[in-house]
């Protein structure tokens, strides 16, 4: 078992609409892999398919060597595969604190709930200030923090992170990425989907570029030629 998580010719989409085709990606244990690319490329859909929120049309998902295609989402969570969705997937009519508590729903994490919650409040003092506020009333940045905090409450083994910088100011983006860096140092396996190529590359071990449902570049961070990546990204032929 070389890779903790891998996909084999995975395809998925919504209804008749195909979003990505034949994706075979691999994610190594303890490493941070980032998937960059313009929006609409299918990155988020790919993560949702990994979590079982979207049924794949074809292909396989293997986690710890087992085929996961049939596994319901909640089992994946209990096995340590966790996704931090972008801020819109909060429990909007629950309070901030309740959202965090719900992160500790998986049985094995319930014992350490208090500790984890304090940890999250330490990371994001803003959330502590707003602990009794309804999640639906948070600003974009705060919602993003809450989503991350809630994900951390789940004590992930593998953490899929979807567009964490979306709607965040540069300062806030920096803050959040410094948290990811800490997680990376703790040897968490991270799959990061980002439009913010620059930040993403800074913490990546491996980089995929995804465009229009296809992987157009797959290289270790050290090998990535930024100029070429940018050209590919902006479709500059020269």
């Amino acid at each position, binding site marked *: 078992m070389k890779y903790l998580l891998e996909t084999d010719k995975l395809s998925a989409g919504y209804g008749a609409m195909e979003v990505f085709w034949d994706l075979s990606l691999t994610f190594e244990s303890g490493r941070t892999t980032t998937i960059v690319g313009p929006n609409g490329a299918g990155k988020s859909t790919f993560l949702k398919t990994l*979590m*079982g*929120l979207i049924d794949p049309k074809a292909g396989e998902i293997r986690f710890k060597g087992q085929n996961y295609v049939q596994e*319901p*989402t*909640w089992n994946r*969570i*209990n096995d340590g595969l*966790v*996704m931090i*969705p972008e801020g819109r*997937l*909060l*429990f*909007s*009519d*629950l309070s901030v604190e*309740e959202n965090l*508590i*719900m*992160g500790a*729903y*998986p049985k094995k994490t*319930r014992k350490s709930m208090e500790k984890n919650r304090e940890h999250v409040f330490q990371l994001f003092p803003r959330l502590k200030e707003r602990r009794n506020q309804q999640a*639906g009333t948070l600003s974009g940045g705060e919602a993003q923090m809450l989503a991350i905090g*809630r994900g951390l409450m*789940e004590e992930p083994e593998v953490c899929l992170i979807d567009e964490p910088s979306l709607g965040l100011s540069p300062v806030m983006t920096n803050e959040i990425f410094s948290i990811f860096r800490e997680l990376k140092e703790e040897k968490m396996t991270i799959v990061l989907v980002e439009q913010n190529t620059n930040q993403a590359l800074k913490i990546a071990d491996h980089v995929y570029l995804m465009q229009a449902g296809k992987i157009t570049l797959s290289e270790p961070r050290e090998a990535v030629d930024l100029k070429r990546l940018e050209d590919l990204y902006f479709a500059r032929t020269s």
Partner: protein
Amino acid sequence: MELTAQALFTGLLMGGFYGLIAVGLALVFGTMKVINLAHGELVLLAAYIAYALESQTGLNPMLSLPIAMAVVIVAALVTFYLTNQIKKDRELNSLILTFGLGIVLTNGLLMVFSADIYSTQSSWFMEGVVIADSLFSMRSEMIAFIVGIAALGGLYWWLNHTWHGRAIRSVSSNRDAAKLMGMNPTKAELWSWGVAGVLAALAGVMLYVTSVIHPPVGHSLTIKAFVITVLAGMGSIPGVLVGAIMIGVIEGLTTTYFQSSLAELASMTVFLLVLLVMPSGLFGKKGAH
């Protein structure tokens, strides 16, 4: 003055009881967006179980609760199972499905218990409780009110402080997000139906000790419960209490100042006004769309 005071008091007591009747419907409505049109019949089923046990064994109706609960939970879970079988257009089709199940239950009760009217034999429940020399109620009405408030409070606590309860709220708030927290939404829905069964059983036994039962009662209970649920707004438990008391008080005041036969008109009009002007109800967050 005395009339008004009594009308308000009666309305308040009725409200607590109505809340108990409505809250099961509201819970399921909140979790699954399914309006269980057989809810009133489930309540009535519990009432008939209390009657059957009392008339056969002389059991105090209060003690028949465990059996009533067991039966009603099973009935509620069967309804849930059937509702879950609907693949297309569940919001509307479940309405028709549960409506059909309501007809089955009403007629089943009619066949088993005939059209006769029943109420508890124990006069203990009927004895008067007088507050401040001027506010009158039957002991059973007090009990029903207290049980109603306690059940609503208990449910509120349960939804906020237990994992199962929180799971129900999470699933109703955002199904996908709930899955991402490791919840099985179907299981949460199962719990909400089960708890709705418990609440219906409580309401049914209270119905039996406070009032008179016969088969057509179920349908009117459902309508009342639905009216209150809409007034409350999508599955809000405090809203159910406020809405229920509002309906109770409106009925009491209409009866006192106009006549009883207009009480239904008043509560229906208020219901429509709320539905049209504030579609998300008094305590709702999302629109009715």
